[in-house]
């Protein structure tokens, strides 16, 4: 009956290490700045719909008209209130990007741990399949699928999650291969624990640091891809209020009505900067050096 208690002890140890990582990351000034920036945008996106003065499809002005009574930033390309659409347009981006990053990281973690631990032909097959997936630039893959199957919400999430998976899997596999050389994994094997338990209880808690860093990175890219799909008109469709789509709709009138573009653009910029600052803090705390390069 020693197994459950060791498992409990170990998960407790993992918890303190994770707390240590978060505390270590918090020690950097840029992490705090990142949390503030991210929190600000999340607050706008979540509380926005409740404080918006109009409904997102209500006409309050002439197209691209500014300085209208009762509006702060004027009207957009159809004459709808810019402030209202800005306040409504954030939560879709957060939800889509968050779920795409979450699903992609979970799937990548499972694939990476299994491939790294089982090795042999399974590892080879998974990693070769990964290389093929990696051969597509993320945005091109998303555009191809969207153009074929049509822009649907679940499809946006699925395509981005699938394109994240091989990238996460590669990192987690590397981390796993370092962990399985450790004595405690060999000890667990010697006791005869089933392989899935070793993967779930011994290996997974010990690759959480790179996993958290990956989550941050993937979140930054998810926000970028969701926003750029909306901007290209291949993401959420009108009349949804969405920051990416808002930029697409209003870019023709940028010279006369800059607010309709400037607001969503600044929000996306601040959000990605904030998330990336947090990620940078996490990775510094995890490995003590600058994180890797590449898009």
């Amino acid at each position, binding site marked *: 009956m020693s197994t459950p208690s060791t498992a409990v002890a170990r998960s407790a140890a993992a918890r303190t290490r994770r707390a240590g990582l978060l505390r270590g990351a918090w020690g950097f000034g840029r992490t705090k700045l990142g949390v503030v920036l991210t929190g600000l945008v999340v607050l706008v996106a979540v509380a926005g719909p409740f404080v918006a003065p109009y409904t997102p499809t209500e006409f309050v002005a002439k197209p691209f008209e500014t300085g209208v009574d009762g509006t702060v930033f004027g009207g957009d390309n159809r004459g709808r209130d810019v402030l209202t659409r800005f306040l409504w347009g954030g939560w879709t981006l957060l939800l889509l990007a968050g779920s795409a990053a979450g699903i992609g990281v979970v799937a990548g973690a499972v694939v990476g741990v299994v491939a790294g631990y089982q090795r042999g032909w399974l590892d080879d097959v998974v990693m070769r399949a990964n*290389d093929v997936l990696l*051969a597509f*630039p993320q945005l091109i893959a998303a555009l191809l699928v969207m153009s074929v199957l049509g822009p649907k919400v679940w499809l946006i999430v699925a395509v981005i999650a699938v394109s994240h998976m091989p990238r996460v899997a590669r990192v987690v596999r590397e981390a796993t291969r370092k962990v399985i050389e450790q004595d405690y994994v060999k000890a667990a094997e010697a006791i005869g624990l089933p392989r899935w338990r070793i993967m779930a209880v011994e290996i997974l808690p010990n690759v959480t640091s790179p996993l958290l860093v990956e989550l941050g990175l993937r979140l930054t890219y998810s926000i970028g891809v969701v926003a750029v799909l909306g901007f290209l008109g291949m993401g959420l469709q009108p009349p949804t209020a969405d920051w990416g789509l808002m*930029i697409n709709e209003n870019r023709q009138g940028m010279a006369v009505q*800059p607010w309709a573009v400037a607001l969503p653009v600044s929000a996306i*910029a601040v959000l990605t900067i904030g998330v*990336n600052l947090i990620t940078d803090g996490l990775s510094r705390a995890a490995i003590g050096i600058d994180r890797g390069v*590449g898009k």
Partner: protein
Amino acid sequence: MTRLIVVRLLFGALTLWAVSLVVFAATQALPGDAAQMILGRDATPQRVEALRDQLNLHEPVAVQYLQWLQGILQGDLGTSYSNRMPVDEVLASPVGSSLALMGLAALVATPVALAVGAFSALRRDRAFDHASSLGTLVVASIPEFVVGILLILLLGPGGFDLLPSVYSRVGGPDQWVLPVLTLAFAVAPPIVRMMRATMIEVLESEYVQQARLKGLDERTVLWRHAAPNAIGPVAQVVALQLAWLAGGVVAVEFLFNFPGVGKILMDAIENRDVPLIQAVVLLIAGVYILVNLLADVIGLAANPKVRVANR
């Protein structure tokens, strides 16, 4: 090392083949009949039927794929649905424009990024280093089209009105400035970071210390002993960034209405022009794979362990 490179090349070809399979399968799933799409809505059934025969649309999908692949290998990319011209003619001028845009961006970004990275390494943990570290982090996080819009808002007609924000046939060379600048901002940060990290590693190495202890002047130490050893990993990152440009160019061309492959792709998607979509996606994926391969080979060639082993 030759063997390793040959293996990579074979694997690159295999990946490209897999990509072609994916692209063909994806476009097969598109609704609508190719013959009908080419002839338009008011074509007679007889003409549609005749064209179906000509395009081998009665054959099984596998046969169609092989014929399509054979055509591509012979340089025949098919006929565009929307303007009924051969795809390679449609693509000729946009490919040139896109390559020029990407080349200019790389030419602007690389030297500046290398200089900033090297200078940060020399000024490690001082004000310049901190500023460039935070700066690259911020620029690297923002999606490239957002960088482009911020540049337009700042320098375009709505801001200081220094540069045109939309490409047009009659415009002068100044309309290239904002697209090139946007792409340069997108590719530079990783190069800066890699250059800094590598230079720091090299400057702390024993052979550089040895060179300094010999009493060589700092300039010789930097250019003769440090820089050559930093080139390998940095060249690899530069190549990877060039590969990223192949895909990243789409949104930037769309934003500036720049007549390159990215804009062609967006138009083709709009018109459901299947042969054109296939060709552009294959082209971009091909460039991406090729440049990634190049990065691999550079990485191998720059690694002395690999270079010397199994020669």
